[in-house]
C-alpha cells in the first residue's frame, strides 16, 4: 500500500532500489513506534497530570536503572538498523564486472554521455521550451523532466557509470535506480545499475550548480538488448551521415538568411541562458555580446572561444556539442544580430580551419 503512494519514496525498478525502499520503510515504522510511545506518554501526562485536575507533583528526579535502560534499548535498535543498512550499502558500492560502461559528464547545464565500448557520445539538454517556463505556453506532461537526447541503456545488464564534471559539482540522480552520485570536476566517481524492465526513467541534477540547476533533467530509456543494439547501430549510421554531410558542407557556402535563421535557433537553445536572448548578458556575471569588441572586431578569437570555451569561467566549449553548420550559424548570428551588423558571414570551412589550427 505504502509503495503506491505518490508521496512516498519510489520503490524503483531495480533490486537495489527495492532494498533501499524496504530499508526506508523499516526505519520509518520504527520511528513511528518510538514516536507513538514517547508522545503517548507525554500526552498522557499532559492530560492526567495537570494542576487544574488537582494533580500534585511527585518528587522523583533520578533513577539510574531507568536511565541506563533507555540508553541501552535504543542502542540495540540501532544495531538492528545498521545490519541491513550495511549489507545494502556494500551491494550498492560494488561496481565490479560491468557489462556496459558509460561516462557521464556534467557541465552548466547539460549532461554528456559517452559509451566506452562503442564509439558514441552526445549531449543531453532540457527539451522543455522556454515559453512553457515563462508561462506563455501550456506546460507539457513531463514539464522540466524531458531532454532532447535521452541516455539509452540495455536491460538486464550491469551498467557502470563513471561520473565527472567539466566545471562545478553536479549530481546525477535517477530515483528509480536509487543512484545518486556527485560529478566532481577533475575526479571520477562510480555507480552502477541493472534495470530489469524496459521503460523511461526520469531524474534531475541534485547539487546546486548555478543559475539553471533546476533545469538539468536526466532521462534514461532502458531497452531490450535487441532494441538497444538496433538503436546503437542507428546512432552510428546517423553519426557517419553527419560526418559526411560536414565534409560536403566545407565546400558549400550557406546564404545569409540560412545562417541567421539557424544561428538564432542555436543561440536561443545554447547561449541565451547566460548571454540573454537580447545579447546583453548579465552585468557582473555573463558578458554582453551586443557591442562586444571581440564580437565586432576579432573573428578568430570569437570562433575560438565558442569552440573551446574559456577556462576558469562559465563559458563552456561548444566544439563537440554542436555541428560545424550550427557553429558557423551561431557565430554569424552573434556577429550580425542586435545591431552588431558586421556583415560578415562565417562558413563551416572557417570553423573547420580554426579547429585544425588548434589541434
Amino acid at each position, binding site marked *: 500500500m505504502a509503495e503506491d503512494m505518490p*508521496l512516498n*519514496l519510489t520503490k524503483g525498478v531495480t533490486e537495489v532500489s527495492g*532494498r*533501499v525502499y524496504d*530499508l*526506508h520503510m523499516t526505519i520509518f515504522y520504527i*520511528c513511528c513506534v*518510538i514516536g507513538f510511545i*514517547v508522545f503517548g*506518554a*507525554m500526552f498522557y*501526562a*499532559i492530560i492526567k*497530570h*495537570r494542576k*487544574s485536575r488537582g*494533580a*500534585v*507533583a*511527585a*518528587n522523583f*528526579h*533520578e533513577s539510574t536503572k531507568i536511565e541506563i535502560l*533507555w*540508553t541501552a534499548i*535504543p*542502542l540495540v535498535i*540501532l544495531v538492528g*538498523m*545498521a545490519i541491513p*543498512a550495511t549489507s545494502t*550499502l556494500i551491494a550498492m*558500492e560494488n561496481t565490479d564486472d560491468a557489462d556496459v560502461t558509460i561516462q557521464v559528464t556534467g557541465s552548466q547545464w547539460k549532461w554528456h554521455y559517452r559509451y566506452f565500448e562503442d564509439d558514441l557520445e552526445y549531449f543531453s539538454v532540457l527539451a522543455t521550451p522556454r515559453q512553457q*517556463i*515563462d*508561462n506563455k505556453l501550456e*506546460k507539457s506532461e513531463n514539464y522540466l*523532466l524531458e531532454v532532447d537526447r535521452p541516455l539509452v541503456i540495455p536491460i538486464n545488464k550491469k551498467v557502470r557509470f563513471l561520473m565527472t564534471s567539466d*566545471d*562545478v559539482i553536479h*549530481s546525477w540522480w535517477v*530515483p528509480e535506480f536509487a543512484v*545518486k552520485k*556527485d560529478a*566532481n*570536476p*577533475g*575526479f571520477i566517481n562510480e555507480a552502477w545499475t541493472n534495470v530489469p524492465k524496459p521503460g523511461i526513467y526520469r531524474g*534531475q541534477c*541534485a*547539487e*546546486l550548480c*548555478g*543559475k539553471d540547476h*533546476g*533545469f538539468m533533467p536526466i532521462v534514461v530509456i532502458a531497452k531490450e538488448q535487441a532494441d538497444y543494439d538496433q538503436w546503437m547501430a542507428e546512432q552510428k549510421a546517423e553519426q557517419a551521415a553527419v560526418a559526411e554531410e560536414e565534409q560536403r558542407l566545407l565546400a558549400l557556402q550557406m546564404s545569409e538568411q540560412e545562417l541567421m535563421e539557424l544561428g538564432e535557433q542555436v543561440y536561443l537553445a545554447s547561449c541565451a541562458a547566460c548571454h540573454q536572448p537580447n545579447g546583453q548578458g548579465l*552585468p*557582473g*556575471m555573463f558578458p554582453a555580446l551586443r557591442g562586444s569588441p571581440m564580437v565586432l572586431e576579432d573573428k578568430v578569437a570569437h570562433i575560438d572561444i565558442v569552440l573551446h570555451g574559456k577556462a576558469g*569561467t562559465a563559458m563552456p566549449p561548444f566544439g563537440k556539442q554542436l555541428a560545424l553548420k550550427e557553429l558557423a550559424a551561431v557565430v554569424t548570428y552573434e556577429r550580425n544580430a542586435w545591431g552588431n551588423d558586421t556583415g560578415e558571414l562565417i562558413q563551416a570551412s572557417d570553423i573547420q580551419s580554426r579547429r585544425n589550427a588548434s589541434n
Partner: protein
Amino acid sequence: MTESNTTDDQHAGEHEHHGAPKGIMRWVLTTNHKDIGTLYLLFAFAMFLLGGAMAMIIRAELFQPGLQLVEPNFFNQMTTVHGLIMVFGAVMPAFTGLANWMIPMMIGAPDMALPRMNNWSFWILPFAFTMLVASLFMEGGGPNFGWTFYAPLSTTYSPDSTALFVFAVHIMGISSIMGAINVIVTIVNLRAPGMNWMKLPLFVWTWLITAFLLIAVMPVLAGVVTMVLTDKYFGTSFFDAAGGGDPVMFQHIFWFFGHPEVYIMILPSFGIVSAIIPAFARKPLFGYASMVYATASIAGLSFIVWAHHMFTTGMPLFGELFFMYCTMLIAVPTGVKVFNWVATMWRGSMTFEVPMLFALAFVVLFTIGGFSGLMLAITPVDFQYHDTYFVVAHFHYVLVTGAIFSIFAAAYYWLPKWTGHMYHEGLAQAHFWCSLISVNVLFFPMHFLGLAGMPRRIPDYALQFADVNQIVSIGGFAFGVSQFIFLAVIIKAAKGGEKSPAKTWEGAEGLEWDVPSPAPYHTFETPPEIK
C-alpha cells in the same frame, strides 16, 4: 536557598554619578550585560524578519510551477542569503543575547567577565550584515552559491561580490569567538561561592559546551572562506583539480565546521527547555547529571560525523560505514534528553502558560526532526534523500520548531524579568497557536516533496509537485504573518502591563528569580551565597 542583594535605586543613582551616557550613546557604548543582551535580541529579531522576508520571496516563486516573480539567479541569492541570515544573524545572536542576559544572573555574577569585548562583539555584527545585504545590490548580485558555498561554484563561477561575502563571514566568526570566550571566562570565574559544577543551571551548562564548540570550529570556517578568497582572487588552487587541489576537500573542511555548527544552534535550546519544563511541571528536572553527560557526548560526537553531509561525493565504503555508524549513535544521547523531559512531566502538576506551550511543541517537533535525522543517517537511503526537500524538512524541524521555538519559549519565560511586565496572555496564545499550526503546514509536507523526488534549491519544478508546493507556500505566508503578533506582544510588554513579581512563575527555580522584576541595571554586586 539564596541570599540576593540588589539595592537597585542606590546603584542606579551611583551609575548616573559616573556620568553614564544617555540616549543613543548609552546603547553604543554600553558594557552592561543586560543592555548588550537586549541589543543582541533586538538585532536577532530584526534579522529574523529580514531573513523571513526572503523566505517569503522564495515561497511566492514556488507557489506555482513556472517562473513568475524572480529570475533563477536572484532566486539563488535569496536562498543563500536567507540561510546565512537565519543561521548567523537570527539563531546565533538570539542565543548570545539570552546568554548575555541570563548567564550572569543565573550564576550570581555582576556582569560578563569581559564587558568591553562584549560591546565590540555585538557592534561588529550590524556591519557584517550590512555588508552582506548590500552585496545584493552590487552589479552581478550577492552570493548565489548556497549557504554551504561549495567550491568550485563559489571560487570560479561566483559573482564579483564574493569578497564582501567572505569579509562578512569573517566578521561574524570573530564576533562569535569573542562572545564564546566571554561566556567561558564568565562561567569559569564568576560563579557565586558555593555554585559548584553540578549545581550549574542546565542553560549555563549547555552554553558552556556550546562556547567550546564555537571556539573549536569558527577558525575552521574562517580558514575555508579565506581559501575561497585566495582561490578566487589570488590564483591559489586549494579546490581546483587543474592546479592540484580538490573540490571535495572544500566540503570536508566546510562540514568539519558545519556539523558542530548545527549543534551550536541546538544545545542552548536544550538548556532552555530544561529550565522551562520543570518550572511548569512543578517538579525537578529528571536526570540532571545524565542531561549534562548527554550534552557533552552530543558535542563530542559532532566532531566525527561531518561527512554524513557528503555521502554522495564518492567516499570509500569504509568511510561511509564509519560516518553512518557514528551518526546513528547521536540518536542515543538525543533520545536520553527527550526521555528525561517526558519523565520530568510525568506525575507533575502541569500548567500551560505560553513558555510551556512552546517548550512542549519543541519536544514533539524537535523529536520529529531527530527521527528524520536518523533516517538521513542510514547511508543507502540518504543517497535518495540527499539534496531533496526531505533534508529541507529535516533541518527546518530542528532549526525552526527546535531552535527558534525554544527562543520564543525563553523570550516569554524571561520577558517579565526583562521588562517587569507580564505579556498579554491572549496575544501570546494567538502567537503560539498560529505559529504551531502554520509551521507544520509549512514544513511537514516538505518531507513528501522530497520523497517524491523534488530536489532542493530549484526555482521551478515538475507538475506533480505543484499541489504540495501550494500548501507549503500558504503555510509559509501564515507563519510569516504570525510573527507580527510576537512583535506586538513585545512592544506591549515593553510599554507596560500587569506588574510581575520577582518570581514570575510559581515553579520557577534559579537565582534570576531572586532579583526584582524588572531586573535592576546592576545585580549581584556582592555575590549571593549558595548553600
